[in-house]
């Protein structure tokens, strides 16, 4: 077998694929965080818990109601998004006029409560969720083996990210969102219902997290801690991309997943910290993030 930069291609491309998979989750989750932070100015620490809830709704749908993966992919974001809307209306709305820190603390507390409830009910050892029959197996590409499900995760994530970017950057609704993000008072004075936009945006951001949770369920075990493990990395991705930057969240999410994967090949000891090292460097050189605008 030939080698690339001293590494067997199976290992290299395997890690590239793994990096892309992780990058897919980073991208969708950081996109949701960016959308929420942009309009609500809330650092949504509950995002990891909402991602976990998406996976659990899929698991519960399958085990309690017999709903398959494809139905869960549609329903879980709706259900968890509705929970998010209730959280925004009942809790976050009350702290919209105070410092960001309060939103972070509130959502951090909510994340702990949600994870605690699920851990209490389902334990923390993890629950299995099968890959849907249509996506089992894979294809030997010669230089690597591509599992269909993992390919699907990358493609579905890309489609969702690009569709979200298009909606925000190229549609009238997106113009409302960008305007309300920049100057909510004036936008409201034009007759646009900004509080409703805020609520729906939070619901949408949460639904993105839940969508990622359903995608993740067959890859990782469905576990109350699955979001908590991921959310710190996702926050680093958001900081590197630029808080509130949509394109930053998408590009940085996929790129850092790849960087992490390649680090596993070339210097595995640094793979768990490479994203944080990049975050420190970016904060030193460009504090607003690679795609962010200076305040």
């Amino acid at each position, binding site marked *: 077998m030939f080698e690339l930069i001293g590494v067997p291609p199976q290992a290299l491309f395997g890690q590239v694929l793994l990096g892309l998979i992780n990058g897919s989750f980073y991208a969708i989750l950081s996109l949701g965080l960016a959308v929420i932070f942009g309009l609500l100015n809330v650092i949504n620490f509950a995002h990891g818990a909402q991602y976990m809830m998406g996976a659990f709704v899929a698991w519960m749908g399958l085990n309690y109601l017999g709903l398959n993966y494809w139905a869960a992919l549609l329903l879980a974001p709706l259900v968890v998004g509705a929970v998010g809307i209730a959280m925004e209306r009942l809790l976050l709305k009350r702290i919209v006029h105070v410092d960001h820190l309060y939103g972070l603390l509130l959502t951090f507390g909510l994340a702990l409560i949600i994870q605690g409830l699920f851990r209490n009910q389902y334990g923390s050892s993890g629950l299995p969720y099968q890959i849907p029959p249509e996506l089992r197996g894979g294809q030997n590409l010669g230089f690597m083996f591509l599992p269909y499900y993992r390919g699907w995760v990358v493609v579905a994530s890309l489609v969702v990210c690009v569709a979200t970017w298009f909606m925000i950057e190229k549609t009238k609704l997106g*113009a409302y969102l960008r*305007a309300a993000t920049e100057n909510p008072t004036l936008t*409201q*004075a034009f007759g*646009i219902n900004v509080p409703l936009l805020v609520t729906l945006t939070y619901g949408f951001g949460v639904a993105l997290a839940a969508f990622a949770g359903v995608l993740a369920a067959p890859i990782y075990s469905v576990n109350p801690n699955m979001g908590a493990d991921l959310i710190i990395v996702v926050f680093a991705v958001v900081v590197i991309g630029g808080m509130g930057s949509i394109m930053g969240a998408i590009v940085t999410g996929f790129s850092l997943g790849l960087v992490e994967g390649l680090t596993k090949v070339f210097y595995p000891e640094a793979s768990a910290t490479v994203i944080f090292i990049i975050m420190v460097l970016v904060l030193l050189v460009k504090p607003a993030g690679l795609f962010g605008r200076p305040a």
Partner: protein
Amino acid sequence: MATTEVLRVPAVVAGAAPLLKVRGLEAWYGESHVLHGIDFDVAPGEVVTLLGRNGAGKTTTLKSIMGVIGKRTGSAIFEGKETIALPSRAIARLGIGYVPEERGIYSSLSVEENLMLPPRIRDGGLGVEQIFQLFPNLKERLRSQGTKLSGGEQQMLAIGRILRTGAHFLLLDEPTEGLAPVIIDQIGATIRKLKQEGYTIILVEQNFRFAATVADRHYVVEQGKVIDMIPNAELDRNIDKLHSYLGV
């Protein structure tokens, strides 16, 4: 300083039911009490200015009418409907268009997106081509970022996007501030044209010489109250008084 007990209303307006009737309007920025009981009327089709020194409460009066200030009390009746408890989005949908002092052009939106942003709230708004006839510069800059426009072009964009909505009552906050004389002339011509077409306008202005070219009446605001009303036709006779009000 002279203070009129009862505001004089000119004959041309006296018979008309006011389109906007403001009574006892008070407003606060946090703990700071800024308006202390503003009273004035605006008749349909009038152009009325609010004149006064910096910090007198002119901009706050517009913000209070539009509902974009934290706390306000009193009464602002528009077309017979009390608006004081309404959110600004509901006030806008009654047909009131607001152009803020800083123009409010969104940097994250293109000129075209800025222009098309406010929803149409009633029939009768100008079409995009009509807006381009009023402000030809905008047509050439549609793809530009909104805040890349010159100050004058931004003012045109801020006025143009309100005219699209069908709002027929306009609140213009210092539309000539910081603009070159040639642009001020263009803004003045636009306001006179809008008046001819039946728009009702409240104009906040520091520049009373400009205000005199477009307005029917001038309300003088001082320390959060309206202290005088001068019909434009009587401006020359009252020029010394106005100078003393404005500290010119």
